[in-house]
Structures are given as structure tokens and as C-alpha cells.
């Protein structure tokens, strides 16, 4: 009898403990950098917090930061899935294969992979058209440079990064035919010291406008120190470069995260491929710096408007590839497939893309 009682009590206690988790949706987030990076991961984490604010007690979110891309990510993902996550957001390109591998083992868990191209029944992909933002900052850069040298700190040679370089270059060149793009590959998403060194190397060689496709705010701080112009990446970095930052491309993931977690909750989640840009607000801009000339700001705003309403596409011909061969004829626009797999520079950019 006593044993039965104890068992009953244990069962009740278990039931009481387990009860809330039935109604609660668990969302996991895997980050490539620390949430305090001031850039990419910072914005993803803001999206996570927005999900919590939206759904309150109905959702429980967890995250793991600074997860290396590769095998280690698989371990973290598996652990999250085992811990009962209903949906897991993997927020860096390098998590693509780990996400697919773990998704196979957990068919009932939904996965959302950022910036990749591999999908499955329980794996969605989502990304933002950062290149639309790059077109705008490229235009501003072309107008602002006095030395006609624009520096670009690139992370890894993946299509997303190459697209950004091309878009920025095309639009800088459009307003300033003499412009030259100096690209430095640092092969990291987050290493403040290395990013700072790359910024210094570029500035030492005459660059007076700096762009970055890395996640820390170090290049912005160097730009501020050296008195040149720069653009924030992924998040508003004006705190680190109040004079230097003309504007920043902001990735606003919050609406997407709220939408997808909502779909998991009401059971309408399906595997989708989302690629939104300025039109939906997934790509937004930090307030323009007061020291940006009014005509440049007006030009940038007009460009934002025309990309936003779809009347202008950043990759519109005539455009040639780096080797001089024709890519897009007059008036032709690039399709999403080509953009998603972009592996070449456009004409005018010097240097090779690493393999």
C-alpha cells in the first residue's frame, strides 16, 4: 500500500511537472557568435526576445552562443532536439549540413536554417536580401569617397558575401566611375582583433570608406578612430562610430521568427524558403548620419524606395562578369537561382575569389 501511495504521488508530481510543457512551445536558437557582438548574432537574439515578448508564457526559448560551424554544431543541435525543442533556428550558413543531418534524426522537430539552400520536410530556409542594402550603402560609398578606394572586409567566400561585394561595387561604380574596391578576406565571422587589423591594413592603403561582412563592431571603432566613413553591418553600430557610421544595414528577424513560431504553435508550419528584403522590412537601415550630405541622403532614400516597391532590381543589366563575358543584357534582371549560387565577381573588381 505504502509503495502504491508513493508511486501514485510520484506519478502525480510528474504529471504536475509535465503539465505546463504540453502547452508550451520550445524554440531553440543556435548562434555563431556571442549575443553581445553588436552585429549579426545580436539581431538574431533580438528576434528571439521578440518571440518571447509576443507569446509570453506559451513559449520557452533557449539559445547557445558561439557555436563553431561544423561538427560541434551537430552536437549542440542534437542536444537541443533531445531537450524537447519544437523548433530550432540555426543562424549561420555553416550550420547547413549539421542542420540537415540532425533534422533527419528528429523528423518531428522543425528546423529553420538561415542563409542556406538545403531544405527537407522539416527544414525551412530563410534569408534576407542583404544585397539590396548593399546597393544603398554602395551608392553612399561611391558618393562619399575622396580617395576613390572602398575597403571591404569579407568573411568567407560564399554566395551571400560575394553578392554583397558585387552589389556594393556595382552601385558605387554607377555614381563614381573611378571607384576601386579593395577586398580583404579574414575567414572568420567574429574575431574583433583580426577585423580591426584588416580595417587598419585597408586604411593604411588609402581606403576612406569601409564596409564589412563580419559580425563585430571592431572595424567601425577603427573607422571612427581614423576619421573615415563606414557602414554598420547587421545591426545599428552607431554607438561604436557616431561620426563614422553613415548608416547600417539592419537585419530585422523578429517578424519572421514570430510568424514561424506561431505556425509551429498552431500546427500550420510547413517547409518554406523565405528570401525577403527591403519590401517586407527584413532589410532595414539605421538612421542616416547627420553629417551625410543632403543630396546623398536623398539619392539613397530614392534608391531604398525604388527597391522597396520593386521598380528597381539591384542586379539589372547590362552587367558583365569579371572576365568580361556578358552576364546580364541591357534591362535583364538576375533570377533568384543565379543570385543564390553567385560565385563570380562582376567586371571591374580586381582580385580572385578564394575557393
Amino acid at each position, binding site marked *: 500500500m505504502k509503495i502504491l501511495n508513493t508511486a501514485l504521488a510520484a506519478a502525480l508530481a510528474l504529471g504536475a511537472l509535465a503539465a505546463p510543457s504540453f502547452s508550451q512551445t520550445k524554440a531553440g536558437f543556435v548562434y555563431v*557568435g556571442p549575443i553581445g557582438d553588436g552585429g549579426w548574432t545580436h539581431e538574431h537574439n533580438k528576434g528571439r526576445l521578440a518571440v518571447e515578448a509576443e507569446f509570453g508564457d506559451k513559449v520557452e526559448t533557449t539559445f547557445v552562443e558561439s557555436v563553431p560551424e561544423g561538427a560541434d554544431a551537430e552536437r549542440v543541435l542534437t542536444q537541443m532536439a533531445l531537450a524537447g525543442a519544437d523548433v530550432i533556428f540555426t543562424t549561420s550558413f555553416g550550420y547547413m549540413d549539421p542542420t540537415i543531418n540532425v533534422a533527419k534524426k528528429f523528423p518531428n522537430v522543425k528546423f529553420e536554417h538561415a542563409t542556406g539552400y538545403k531544405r527537407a520536410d522539416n527544414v525551412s530556409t530563410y534569408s534576407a536580401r542583404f544585397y539590396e542594402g548593399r546597393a544603398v550603402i554602395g551608392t553612399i560609398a561611391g558618393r562619399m569617397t575622396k580617395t576613390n578606394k572602398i575597403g571591404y572586409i569579407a568573411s568567407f567566400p560564399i554566395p551571400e558575401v560575394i553578392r554583397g561585394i558585387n552589389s556594393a561595387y556595382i552601385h558605387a561604380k554607377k555614381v563614381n566611375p573611378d571607384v576601386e574596391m579593395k577586398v580583404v578576406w579574414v575567414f572568420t565571422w567574429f574575431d*574583433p582583433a583580426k577585423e580591426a587589423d584588416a580595417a*587598419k*591594413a585597408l586604411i*593604411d592603403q588609402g581606403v576612406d570608406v569601409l564596409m564589412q561582412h563580419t559580425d563585430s*563592431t571592431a572595424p567601425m571603432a577603427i573607422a571612427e578612430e581614423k576619421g573615415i566613413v563606414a557602414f554598420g553591418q547587421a545591426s545599428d553600430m552607431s554607438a561604436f562610430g557616431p561620426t563614422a557610421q553613415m548608416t547600417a544595414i539592419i537585419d530585422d528577424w523578429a517578424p519572421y521568427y514570430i510568424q514561424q513560431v506561431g505556425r509551429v504553435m498552431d500546427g500550420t508550419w510547413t517547409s518554406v524558403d523565405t528570401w525577403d528584403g527591403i519590401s517586407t522590412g527584413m532589410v532595414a537601415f539605421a538612421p542616416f548620419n547627420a553629417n551625410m550630405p543632403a543630396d546623398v541622403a536623398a539619392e539613397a532614400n530614392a534608391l531604398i524606395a525604388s527597391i522597396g516597391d520593386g521598380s528597381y532590381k539591384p542586379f539589372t543589366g547590362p552587367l558583365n562578369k569579371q572576365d568580361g563575358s556578358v552576364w546580364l543584357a541591357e534591362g535583364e534582371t538576375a533570377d533568384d537561382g543565379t543570385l543564390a549560387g553567385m560565385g563570380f565577381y562582376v567586371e571591374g573588381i580586381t582580385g580572385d575569389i578564394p575557393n
Partner: protein
Amino acid sequence: MDLSSINPLVLITTVMIAATPILLAALGELIVEKSGVLNLGVEGMMITGAICGFAIAVETGNPALGMLAAMVGGALLSLVFAFFTQILLANQVATGLALTLFGLGLSSLLGQGYVGVKPPSTPKIDIPLLSDLPVVGPVLFQHDMVVYFSILMVVVIWAMLKFSRIGLVLRAVGESHDAAHALGFKVVRIRIMAIMFGGAMAGLGGAYLSLVRVPQWVDGMTAGAGWIALAIVVFASWRAGRVLLGAYLFGGVTILQLNLQAAGVNLPVEYLSMSPYLITILVLVIMSAKGGRASLGAPAALGRIFHASS
């Protein structure tokens, strides 16, 4: 390709700045390992130093006080390691790894209020007469105090290990703690002091990152510099001079490859990017290869637990 756009003088100055954090941390670890202790927590002590130094420098407006606070912070954190490994006789590898994780978390917590804050700039010290020398002057003699301090420490540590009684005792403890104990040396006390020295140096290296090289506070900003420092100690076969060589080589090739890229040199970026690791390892391995294993100089008691009863 236009190499003329690279100014060699500017380049050397940047190299010295880039190499200083790893040099400091590696020198500290050199002493720790010479005493027979393997502390893998360098990364954690560096990042803790980075935030301690940053916070104090911002609050007081004095970068020198910040550097000092970084040394205290790093040393305090290393005391945690010392307590576990020297008093409780815990495994050094596991404790060191835990120290790194702890340091990363602690620094992130301490740094909450310091994201986006600008630190006071660290003044450069012109050495009179020498800094006026043509060419050499601006390159070698117009740095901040930490760069001079790091180079001075190379000489001090080298001389200390080679000529002084303290150096001899330290080495004895690191080679055979039982023998040292039998001779009446306080093995545990000496090791704790070495660990604290290592913590202070790593902390200073971290503060140099957050106050001079980057300069700002970002979560996880050391991004592996502590591990590089650890590797350099091994490849330098536990010698102060070679630690200097290794740190400057690593810093030098890192900066050089970024400059070559910016100059548009027609070399595959992959090779440039891996060159700092390859060249540093290669040079140090070749240097230490000629004398066989004995000349590698790893302290014999490295990583072994000591208890007076054994």
C-alpha cells in the same frame, strides 16, 4: 599588384601592436609551465583581463590603472585554478578548460554595461633621443608602455630562468617536484605564485586587446588568442627568446597577409590566410628539431599532480 602601397614602417608598427597580446600571455604561460603546471585557461584569463582593464580604464579615465586592474583580475581568476589544482589536486587539463569557459562567461557578465563605450586612449611614450632617430625611431621607439614592457619582460624572464636563483628553483620544481620538495622548497607555494604571474600576464594581454588593439569591449573578443599563446609556448620549446620570435612571427605574418590582400597581391587568399599558423609552427619546429627530444625542453613534471605525501 602594387606593393608600393604597403608602407613597411607602418607595417612594422602594426605588427608590434598585433603581437603584444599573445606575447604577454605566452610569457606568462611559459613561467607557469616551467613550474610544472599546465594551465589551459589562458583564454579565460585573457578575456577576464580584457574586461577588468576596460572597465577600470573607463571608470577612472586612466588606461594605466586599467592595465593594472587587468593584471589583478587575471591573477585573481588564476587563483581559482591554483586552488583546484594545487590544494584540491584536481586534474589540470580539465580545470584549465573549465577556467576558460568560466572566464568567457564571467567577462560577458562583467561587460554588460560596457558595450559600445569608448575607452580612454593609451598614450604613446616617445623615448627621448631614440625616437628622433630616422626610420628606426618612429618604428621602434614610439609605442605605448605595454609594448616596451612586453619586450622588457622577455629579457627579464630569459635572464631570470638562466642566471638567477629564483629561476633555478622554478625550474627544479618544474622538472622534479619530489626532488625539489626533498630539498625543502615549497613546491605548492612556488607553483601558486607562478600561476598568478601567468594570470597577471594573460590579463594584461587581454587588456591590451580591449584598450589598444581593437579598442572596445566586445563579448568573446579574444577569439582564440589564448590558444595561440599556448601553442607558441610549446613550439618555442619553453624558451623566452623563441616565444618572442613566435609571437612576432605570428603577428607579423597575420598583418602582412592582410596588407598583401588589401594591396591586391596575386596570391591565393587561402595560402595567405593559413600562412601565419604554418610559418610560425614551421620556423619554431625547425629551430627546435636539431637537438632531439631533450632539447625540446618540456619540463619533466609538466601537468603532474604533486602532493607532499607521495
